[in-house]
């Protein structure tokens, strides 16, 4: 993948005299060591939070007939289209009757999830890495083009940067979602002593509703994230482990030397 194709087009008048410069393989640093650690630490932490959260949701679903239109559902008023989650879902995942255990895990690992998340946010702010993640002016249009490209509806992709518009929007949203999960979680956990927060989030039921849908959001993000990582290939995945990526580039030094070869 050459990103310097414009520069690589040689002057037609020189064509007979010089062969165009060949791109060379270059080792470039891509991800900071702190970002990589916090990213990978977050992976099992979020996994445990979602899994233990499901153990907790089971208890609500178990007697759902007694509060059929409360909180974890798709519906309006006293009409419910879908109730999360069906019995079979929990049974398949060995989740029934583990509410106490779920709370034990959830309220143990919440600390580490919070500490890792806050550390990541502070690091991103202080290091300046937020500039790469925050959506730029053209992020929306960019993201749309990326979506069209990824769905094979459009041939060319917007110019590659470290993160394209779609990534910027997704990564910023997921950081905000993490903050939202923390706030709604606290609002549910201590709805009396932190009542100001619970009230701001629309009350106890509303905070639970938001906490649930943010989690659904994490799961959707995860699925798309994995698909995109698979698409992007090994070089990209490896950079999240090692911090480095191999790129094919035509270096300025190569361009400068071209006229001399005449």
């Amino acid at each position, binding site marked *: 993948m050459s990103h310097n194709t414009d520069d690589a087009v040689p002057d037609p008048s020189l064509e007979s005299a010089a062969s165009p410069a060949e791109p060379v393989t270059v080792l470039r640093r891509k991800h900071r060591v702190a970002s990589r650690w916090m990213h990978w630490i977050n992976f*099992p932490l979020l996994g445990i939070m979602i899994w233990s959260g499901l153990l907790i949701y089971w208890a609500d679903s178990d*007697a759902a007939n007694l509060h059929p239109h409360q909180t974890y559902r798709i519906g309006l008023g006293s009409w419910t289209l879908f109730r999360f989650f069906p019995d079979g879902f929990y049974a398949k995942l060995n989740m029934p009757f583990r509410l106490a255990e779920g709370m034990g895990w959830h309220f143990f690992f919440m600390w580490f999830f919070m500490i890792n998340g806050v550390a990541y946010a502070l690091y991103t702010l202080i290091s300046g890495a937020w500039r790469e993640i925050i959506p730029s002016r053209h992020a929306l249009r960019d993201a749309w083009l990326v979506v069209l490209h990824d769905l094979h509806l459009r041939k060319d992709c917007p110019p590659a940067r470290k993160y394209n518009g779609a990534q910027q929007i997704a990564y910023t949203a997921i950081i905000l979602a993490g903050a939202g999960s923390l706030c709604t979680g606290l609002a549910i956990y201590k709805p009396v002593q932190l009542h100001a927060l619970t009230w701001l989030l629309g009350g106890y039921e509303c905070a639970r509703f938001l906490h649930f849908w943010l989690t659904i959001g994490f799961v959707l993000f995860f699925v798309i994230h994995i698909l995109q990582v698979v698409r992007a290939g090994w070089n990209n995945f490896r950079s999240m482990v090692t*911090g480095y990526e191999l790129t094919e580039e035509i270096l300025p030094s190569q361009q400068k030397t071209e006229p001399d070869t005449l």
Partner: protein
Amino acid sequence: MTEPYLKPILPDDQEALLTGDAARAEMRRRSRRGFLTGGVAAAAAWGIWHTIRYSAPVDGLQRPLRDGLRFDSEVSRHVLGNKRLAPTFPVDKAVSDVRLNGNIGIDPVIKFDTWRLQVTGLNSASSSPQYVSDVNTYKYSEDMALMDQDPNADAYGDTGGSLDSQDEESVVEPGLLLTLDHIRALPRVEMITQLKCIEGWSEIVHWGGARFSDFVAAYKGEAAALPKYVGMQTPNREYYIGLFKEDALHPQTLLCYEMNGEPLSRDHGAPLRLVTPIKYGIKHLKQIGKITFTDDKPADYWAENGYDWNAGH
């Protein structure tokens, strides 16, 4: 010239670029190191999970998780405290048909006129006319005829209490024997608060009763210091809870005898139950038999089954 694909992100990127075979060799070196580190970290993470998952349980919960709940409880008590009040609601927000979600410990046939509230652990109580030298010798009576009349009798199932177990307590405990009229004589308060079940559901309920703090003030006597905890149990001792003294004395902790302006039904804990909107529903013990003031952390039915002892909001 277009921008390089990746801008340098740290000062040491200003070093000379590695290209060609040198770049590939360095990448291999870094990959080896990165994936080895990653493997060790993943193994450590798995080890942490495995250690917790298979730790011996303490009261039905793996020891590290149990310690975690205790830590959370201490953080909550010391950082957040319990001074704030649970929100209250207008009376029309209260549900008319309050959900029944548990009957463990409720005796289906106890005769309410033989019901007494046993109170132990108040040192100053000996001067009270209701003082007896051993509350445990008091026997509640059952009316088996009630079994046929009670439409919910089946619902009690095999958890339905029998008072037989009241013979098991052999400890001599001096204390008070109070009737419901003693509790009714305390200032009556109404409170419309949200009952939050640990299972997830919640309901706004219209309660009526006496503040626990008023009860303590009336029977504690002058200048007597209260022990650290308050324990409660049903007459048949099948359901029991514990509270920190501060939470029992919270102004919204009630000895409740009314729901929606009516006397409590048996299913909802008649003649007297606990209501405390700063705790999950599991602490709202129905049909109180005995209240114990103690410095020993009281046993708690659900805390023995894996749940948090504090269970506070």
